[in-house]
C-alpha cells in the first residue's frame, strides 16, 4: 500500500507538534510527511523568545533539528512559502514554484502580529516581536536607540517591554485600553500591576490612542495621541495582539470567521474535509486560541482523526500564571466576574502590594475565576478547584487569605481529587505525583526530577511538598532525615543542639547525643557547624580528626595525592607585584598553573612538604588563604564596574571586595559563591551564584540561590534597589539562616526549593523577620566575621602543626610514586600506562629543599 502524503504548511511550535506526534504514532510509518516554512529555520520555542535576550541562542530555542527530521523521513523546505492550493487536484504551489500533491493538508500557519493602521507605522525603527529575525532587528535597533516604546499593554507587550529593558533602553508602554492586561485582569489588579511595573522604571501610558508617528524633535520619532499629548522615542515595538494567518484559506475559499480565522470542527477539519487547520490560525466555536497548549491539543486531535482515533477538541482553559518584569500575575477562568449573579471575595495588601480576587457562583459553592497580582502562590490550589468543579469550603475567603503559623490554610491538598493539576507548566496531576511517590521518589527533589513538577515556574513546589508529606503519612512511612547512624537528628536539629547547649567539641556532642564512633558523614558535618558557630582554628587537635583531608592540609587534594593551592584574590583583583610573586613560586616549584572560573589562580602539584614554604612566601607577599578547599565562601566574582566601564552603574569591584573580605573563612553546609555585576549586562554572571548582586541606577538588586555545576539554576530576584547597608544586612541573615537550617552538602538552590513556602517564605524570614530571629542571625554572623584569621598564616607560625606536612613521618623522602609528563609547557600527572613506561622508580621532578 502506498503511503498517504501529508503536507504541513508552517513549521512553528504547533506544526512541529503535529509532525512529532504523527511520526511517533504506531501508524506513523504509513505517512510521507513534507513541511514548508517561510522562516529560515525549523520550529523553535516562541514562548521562551525573551530568553534570547538573556543569552539563549537560536539553537537553545530550537525544538527540533534537521537530523531529527531526516532520521524520521520528514522532508522540510525552509524559506519557501506556500502560496496556492488546488483543492480539486489536491496540490499546493509555493512561492518558488514548487508543486506538491497531498492526500491530507495541514494548515499550521500560526498568526502574525497586529500592527494598528497608524500613519508612519512602516518606518525603519518600527518593529514587531514574533520571530528570531524580529529579535535580531530589535537588538540592532536598540544599539542606535535610547528610548523604546511598546504599543500594547497585554501579556506579549509586557514581555516585549522586559526585552527592551534588558537591552538597556528607557522603556514606555502605551496601551489603548484604560488598564494593563485588560483580558486577564480586573481593574484593581491592572492598577496594582501598573504601579509595580512603574516602580521598576517602566513608564505606563494607558487610554492612549496613537494617531500619527512623525519625526521627533529630541528623539527619532514622536507619537501623537488622540488626546493631544505626545511621546518621543527612538524605536517603536508593536505588540498589540495577534491575527490568525488565514491568507491561504481566504484566497482558496475555505470558510473563514467574520473577524478572521480558519473555521474548524471538533476534529480540526476545515470546510474541506481533506484540509485541517491547527493552532493560532484556526477558529473553533468562534474563538481563536493564542496560547500554545490549545494548539498542541489541536495537533493531537488532528493526528488522532487522521489515524482513525476519536479524540475531539473541546476548547481549552485559558488560565495563565506568569512573571512579567518580575511581577507575579495569575488569571483563572472568569476573571472579570461576567457570569450572571457571580460574587466576589477580595484581598488587598497595600504594604506588600498584593491583590487577590475570587469570583464564585451565586450559590457560593463553585469557583468561577480568580485574579492574582503580586502573589500567585494560590494559583495551584485554585485552578484545580475551578477545573474539576469541586465544591468550595463554606468560607471561600480562606483560600486567598494569608495563612498564619500553625494553621491549616484554606483547603489542604488532601481535599483535591487525583486528577487535580498540581503543576500547570508541565501538566502533572496529584495522581501522577502519588504514583511517583509509591514508585520510590520520596523527596521533593526526586519527585521534581522524576515528574518534572515544579521545574517550570516553580510556583507549585510548596504544594508538591504537601502532597508528598500527606502521602508519606498515609503510607505510614516515618520520614527519617537523620544525618547518619551515629545521630538520630537532622543536621538542622544537631545545629540547634550545638547552639543552645553551646557544644564546642564533637566528642562531647557524640557522647551526650549520639552513639558509636562517628563516621566520614557526621564528623565533617559537625566540624562545619562548630566552625560556623564558634569559628575556632580548624587544625586544633580536637577538630583535626573531623576534617576532610582538604581542610587538614588547607589545600585541594588531586588524583595523585598532591595538593593545589589557591591564594585569595578578592573580586579577582591582583597587583602586578602579586602576580609576579605567584609566578615565581609556580616556577620555583614547577606547579601547573591555571586560572579558575572564580577569577583567581590555581597552582597544582604541590607535595605535602612543599605546602608550608610555598605559603610562607605567599603570606609574606600579603596573600591569604583562599579557602578553595573548604565548604565555605569561595569567591566573589566581579566585573570591572563603574570605575572603568562605560556602562557601569556602581562600583562592583569595591562591593565585591567588601563582600569577599566580610564573608571569607565562613564555613557553610556546602561551598557558596557570589558575584557582583556593575550593570544589567551582568558580565559577572551573578545570577548563577548563591548570592548575586547587580547594580541598578537606584542601588543594588539582590539575587539568591542560583548555582552552576551539575544542576544549573538561575538565582531568584530577592530584593531591588537596596543601599549598601541593607544589602549586607540581608546577605548576613541569608547566609546564617542557610547555615542553621540546610542539610549537609545542600547547596542554597536545593535548600530553597525544599523550604516550605520557597522564596516567599525566605523573604518573610529575612526581610519581614517573620520568625523574629534576624537579630540572632546578625549576631552569629558578626561573631564569624570578628573572629576571622588566615588559617595558613596561623599554621606556618606553629612548628608543632608543620610536622604533619611531610609524606612520611619517619623519612624526608618524597612519595616516589609521583610521576609527571610535560604537556603544553607544563607538567601533569602521568597516566598509569605512562608510569609503566618510566624507568623503575625514577623521579620525574626534582625534589625541592624545605626552606624555613
Amino acid at each position, binding site marked *: 500500500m502506498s503511503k498517504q502524503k501529508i503536507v504541513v504548511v508552517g513549521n512553528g511550535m504547533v506544526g512541529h507538534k503535529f509532525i512529532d506526534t504523527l511520526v511517533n504514532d504506531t501508524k506513523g510509518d504509513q505517512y510521507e510527511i513534507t513541511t514548508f516554512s517561510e522562516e529560515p529555520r525549523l520550529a523553535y520555542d516562541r514562548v521562551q523568545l525573551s530568553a534570547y535576550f538573556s543569552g539563549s541562542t537560536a539553537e537553545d530555542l530550537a525544538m527540533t533539528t534537521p537530523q531529527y527530521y531526516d532520521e524520521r523521513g520528514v522532508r522540510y523546505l525552509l524559506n519557501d512559502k506556500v502560496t496556492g492550493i488546488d483543492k480539486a487536484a489536491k496540490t499546493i504551489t509555493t512561492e518558488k514554484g514548487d508543486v506538491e500533491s497531498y492526500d491530507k493538508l495541514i494548515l499550521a500557519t500560526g498568526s502574525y502580529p497586529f500592527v494598528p493602521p497608524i500613519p508612519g507605522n512602516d518606518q525603519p525603527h518600527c518593529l514587531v516581536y514574533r520571530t528570531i529575525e524580529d529579535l535580531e532587528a530589535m537588538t540592532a535597533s536598540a544599539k542606535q536607540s535610547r528610548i523604546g516604546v511598546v504599543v500594547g499593554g497585554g501579556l506579549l507587550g509586557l514581555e516585549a517591554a522586559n526585552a527592551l529593558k534588558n537591552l538597556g533602553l528607557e522603556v514606555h508602554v502605551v496601551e489603548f485600553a484604560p488598564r494593563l492586561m485588560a483580558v486577564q485582569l480586573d481593574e484593581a489588579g491592572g492598577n496594582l500591576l501598573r504601579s509595580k511595573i512603574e516602580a521598576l522604571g517602566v513608564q505606563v501610558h494607558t487610554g492612549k490612542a496613537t494617531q500619527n508617528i512623525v519625526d521627533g524633535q529630541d528623539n527619532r520619532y514622536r507619537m501623537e495621541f488622540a488626546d493631544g499629548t505626545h511621546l518621543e522615542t527612538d524605536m517603536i515595538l508593536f505588540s498589540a495582539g495577534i491575527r490568525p494567518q488565514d491568507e491561504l484559506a481566504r484566497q482558496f475559499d475555505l470558510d473563514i470567521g467574520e473577524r478572521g480565522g480558519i473555521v474548524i470542527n471538533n476534529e480540526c477539519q476545515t470546510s474541506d474535509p481533506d484540509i485541517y487547520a491547527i493552532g493560532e490560525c484556526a477558529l473553533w466555536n468562534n474563538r481563536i486560541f493564542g496560547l500554545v497548549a490549545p494548539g498542541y491539543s489541536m495537533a493531537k486531535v488532528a493526528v488522532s482523526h487522521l489515524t482513525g482515533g476519536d479524540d475531539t477538541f473541546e476548547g481549552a482553559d485559558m488560565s495563565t500564571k506568569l512573571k512579567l518584569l518580575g511581577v507575579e500575575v495569575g488569571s483563572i477562568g472568569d476573571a472579570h466576574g461576567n457570569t450572571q449573579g457571580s460574587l466576589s471575595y477580595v484581598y488587598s495588601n497595600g504594604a506588600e502590594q498584593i491583590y487577590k480576587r475570587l469570583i464564585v457562583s451565586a450559590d457560593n459553592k463553585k469557583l468561577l475565576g480568580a485574579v492574582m497580582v503580586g502573589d500567585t502562590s494560590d494559583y495551584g490550589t485554585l485552578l484545580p478547584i475551578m477545573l474539576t468543579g469541586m465544591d468550595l469550603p463554606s468560607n471561600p475567603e480562606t483560600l486567598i487569605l494569608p495563612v498564619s503559623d500553625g494553621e491549616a490554610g484554606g483547603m489542604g491538598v488532601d481535599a483535591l481529587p487525583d486528577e487535580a493539576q498540581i503543576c500547570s507548566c508541565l501538566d502533572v496531576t496529584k495522581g501522577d505525583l502519588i504514583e511517583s511517590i509509591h514508585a520510590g521518589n520520596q523527596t521533593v527533589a526526586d519527585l521534581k526530577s522524576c515528574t518534572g513538577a515544579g521545574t517550570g515556574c516553580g510556583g507549585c513546589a510548596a504544594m508538591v511538598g504537601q502532597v508528598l508529606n500527606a502521602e508519606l503519612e498515609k503510607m505510614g512511612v516515618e520520614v527519617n532525615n537523620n544525618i547518619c547512624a551515629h545521630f538520630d537528628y537532622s543536621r538542622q536539629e544537631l545545629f540547634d543542639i550545638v547552639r543552645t547547649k553551646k557544644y564546642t567539641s564533637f*566528642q562531647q556532642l557524640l557522647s551526650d547525643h549520639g552513639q*558509636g564512633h562517628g*563516621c566520614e558523614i557526621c564528623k565533617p558535618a559537625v566540624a562545619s557547624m562548630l566552625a560556623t558557630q564558634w569559628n575556632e582554628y580548624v587544625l586544633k*587537635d580536637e577538630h583535626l580528626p573531623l576534617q576532610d583531608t582538604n581542610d587538614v592540609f588547607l589545600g585541594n587534594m588531586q*588524583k595523585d*595525592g598532591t595538593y593545589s593551592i589557591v591564594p585569595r584574590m578578592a573580586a579577582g583583583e591582583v597587583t602586578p607585584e602579586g602576580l609576579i610573586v605567584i609566578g615565581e613560586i609556580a616556577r620555583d616549584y614547577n606547579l601547573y598553573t591555571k586560572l579558575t572560573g572564580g577569577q583567581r589562580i590555581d597552582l597544582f602539584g604541590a607535595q605535602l612538604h612543599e605546602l608550608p614554604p610555598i605559603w610562607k612566601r605567599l603570606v609574606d607577599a600579603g596573600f591569604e588563604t583562599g579557602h578553595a578547599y573548604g565548604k565555605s565562601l569561595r569567591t566573589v566574582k566581579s566585573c570591572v564596574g563603574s570605575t572603568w566601564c562605560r556602562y557601569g552603574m556602581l562600583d562592583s569591584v569595591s562591593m565585591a571586595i567588601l563582600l569577599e573580605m566580610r564573608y571569607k573563612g565562613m564555613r557553610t553546609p556546602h561551598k557558596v559563591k557570589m558575584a557582583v555585576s556593575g550593570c544589567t549586562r551582568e558580565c559577572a554572571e551573578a545570577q548563577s551564584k548563591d548570592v548575586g548582586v547587580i547594580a541598578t541606577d537606584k542601588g543594588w538588586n539582590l539575587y539568591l540561590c542560583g548555582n552552576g555545576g551539575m544542576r544549573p539554576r538561575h538565582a531568584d530576584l530577592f530584593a531591588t534597589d537596596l543601599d549598601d547597608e541593607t544589602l549586607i544586612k540581608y546577605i548576613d541573615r541569608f547566609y546564617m539562616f542557610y547555615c542553621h537550617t540546610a542539610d549537609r552538602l545542600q547547596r542554597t538552590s536545593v535548600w530553597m526549593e525544599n523550604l516550605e513556602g520557597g522564596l516567599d517564605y525566605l523573604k518573610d524570614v529575612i526581610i519581614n523577620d517573620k520568625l523574629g530571629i534576624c537579630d540572632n542571625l546578625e549576631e552569629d554572623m558578626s561573631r564569624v566575621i570578628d573572629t576571622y584569621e588566615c588559617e595558613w598564616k596561623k599554621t606556618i607560625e606553629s612548628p608543632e602543626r608543620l610536622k604533619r606536612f611531610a609524606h612520611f*613521618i*619517619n623519612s624526608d623522602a618524597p612519595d616516589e610514586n609521583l610521576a609527571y609528563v610535560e604537556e603544553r609547557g607544563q607538567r601533569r600527572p602521568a597516566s*598509569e600506562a605512562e608510569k609503566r613506561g618510566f624507568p623503575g622508580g625514577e623521579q620525574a621532578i626534582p625534589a625541592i629543599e624545605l626552606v624555613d
Partner: protein
Amino acid sequence: MSDSWISVCDESVLIPDTGICAKVGNEHVAIFKVAGSGELFAISNVCPFGKASVLSRGLIGETNGALYVASPLLKQRFRLNDGVCLDDDEVTIATYPVRVTEGQVEVAA
C-alpha cells in the same frame, strides 16, 4: 615476623582518630590511633582504586562496630583490622602488625 619490628615514631606524634604514613622498607604504611581505646592499626597507605599513597589522610569512621578509614580520593572504606574494602568485597589491602614499645610506635613488615 616479630624479629623485624621497625620503630617509626614517638607515640605522642599520633593524634587520636587521625593517621600518619611511615616508610617501612619499600612499603608505605598508614598508622592510625583510635580515640578512646587508643588502639593502633596499620594498613597499606596506597588506595587501590586511586592508586595513590593517601589512606593515612582519610577520615576514620565506624559502622556496626567495625572501624574503617574512608579514602580521601573517592571515599571507598577499608576496614582497619583486616584491610577488607567495605564497598567492594573483591578488594583487600595489606595490614601490618603494629605495637608500642617504650613509647615508640613499631611496625612489622
